[in-house]
């Protein structure tokens, strides 16, 4: 008796012939595709190798990366602000936030980018202050001229980040909603102000819900940067490789170059996301750990 409970179970493992057959089949297809592709002239692998580490491509990849990073940075901050405004006790903030999300989520990002490109045609300057009130030439505010050559790079960033902020706002809002009402109540009854409650009680708890989809949004943003041609900004990865392929009349290898770089970046981001999520789960794991015990 005692022996049988202590010794590990010896049994013939279940066999999975179908899995092996499927694996074999897909490997076969993959190998056949690669062998074929290596010899297909349209791919022009020589051109691919020539351009994949070309200095211009390299720089363009840098532009794509910086567009992604800066736009996401602004989008996250502005998205948190919008989500917090959305549940502020102040009705003006709530309405402004709702309206912003309505407009920027409700129109295509490509169209928005075209609009940002035309900004200097639509408005010649912008003004911060109280409109239409002036004493002679003195206005209650400041005028900023918008030059015709306003940096396309920054217009692209504005376009990308404002659009993304609308999506981030929804992600953050879902995170905030996931926090139990009792949390806000308990914090309020301790005498915490609304903002202190948000900052130290609600937002930290919402983070666990917010982080995974945010990783997704970053990867998505990396690819959306390829639309900045609409501004038109032509220094990013996609526009630059198109540009080179126009020079050499050979589009396919340069598309492959662009794909290789995009794929490389998204792969790195996926790894980063994996570790960030794991790390975050560790810091806040008491809830999870207990449920497994």
């Amino acid at each position, binding site marked *: 008796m005692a022996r049988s409970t202590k010794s590990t179970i010896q049994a013939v493992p279940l066999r999975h012939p179908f899995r092996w057959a499927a694996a074999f089949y897909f490997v076969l297809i993959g190998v056949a595709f690669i062998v074929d592709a290596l010899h297909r002239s349209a791919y022009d692998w020589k051109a691919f190798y020539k351009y994949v580490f070309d200095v211009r491509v390299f720089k363009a990849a840098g532009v794509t990366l910086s567009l992604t990073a800066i736009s996401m940075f602004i989008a996250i901050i502005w998205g948190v602000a919008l989500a917090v405004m959305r549940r502020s006790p102040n009705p003006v903030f709530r309405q402004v936030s709702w309206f912003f999300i309505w407009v920027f989520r409700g129109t295509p990002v490509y169209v928005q980018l075209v609009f940002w490109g035309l900004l200097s045609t639509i408005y010649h300057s912008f003004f911060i202050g109280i409109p239409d009130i002036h004493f002679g030439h003195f206005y209650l505010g400041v005028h900023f001229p918008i030059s015709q050559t306003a940096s396309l790079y920054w217009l692209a960033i504005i376009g990308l980040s404002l659009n993304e902020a609308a999506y981030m706002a929804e992600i953050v809002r879902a995170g905030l909603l996931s926090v139990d009402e*009792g949390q806000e*109540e308990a914090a309020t009854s*301790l*005498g915490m102000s609304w903002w202190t409650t948000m900052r130290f009680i609600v937002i930290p*708890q919402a983070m666990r819900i917010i982080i995974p989809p945010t990783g997704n949004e970053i990867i998505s943003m990396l690819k959306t940067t390829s639309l900045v041609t609409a501004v038109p900004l032509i220094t990013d990865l996609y526009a630059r490789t198109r540009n080179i392929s126009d020079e050499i009349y050979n589009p396919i290898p340069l598309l492959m170059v662009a794909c290789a770089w995009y794929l490389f970046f998204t792969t790195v981001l996926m790894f980063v996301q994996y570790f960030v999520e794991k790390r975050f789960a560790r810091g806040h794991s008491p*809830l999870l*750990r207990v449920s497994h015990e």
Partner: protein
Amino acid sequence: MSESLMVSAVDIHKSFGTNEVLKGITLEVKRGEVMCLVGPSGSGKSTFLRCINHLERINSGRLMVDNQLIGYRESNGKLHELKPSEAAAQRVGIGMVFQKFNLFPHLTALDNVISGMIRVQKIDRTIAIAEGTELLRRVGLADKLEHYPAHLSGGQQQRVAIARSLAMKPKLMLFDEPTSALDPELVGEVLDAMKQLAQSGMTMIVVTHEMGFAREVADSLVFMDGGVVVESGDPEEVLRSPKHERTRAFLSKVL
């Protein structure tokens, strides 16, 4: 208004939309008194407690805690709404313990207790830690300082919640069914902590169905039904010989 009163509620009305939940509550709690509030579900007990803490705004009546009007300031015979910061300052003096504990799950027991001291009263962290440790020791949790709420039993969580409220040095403590969410064997430890608090002279309003606690610890018992106070008085008296039919019917169910 008398100096000896901690809470004075006069004809409190409160509606949610068209649903009038409190229909003229009038009662007084003296300093150092423990009042138990009982009544059937939906009678407005939680709503009344939340009004005292200004988590809900009353529609009419006059509600004072420690001679201060709750939620309003009176000048030249007119009422002015308090600014959020002033309302928050009022809440500091009123502790509240919830049925579902509402501990902050991302903070340890100790960090829960000192959260108010640090974020609201801006007390130095080392001082707050010393005070928080002492408070947790007093509720019998000296060995659980670094535990997260999820690693504590319900009874332990509720005692942390009590300590968290006490950390703000309130003059009045409100308990909304503090033991209703607990397994029966854990009820005692929380009631003991509350009894100890009552003996230290804290003014308390306790919504509870624990009639044993009411009989032993409370100075007065108030029975609410349908948004009004039906009967109140000495707990022993009310429990032994309730005057109203509704009180009798209710007590026969919970005793």
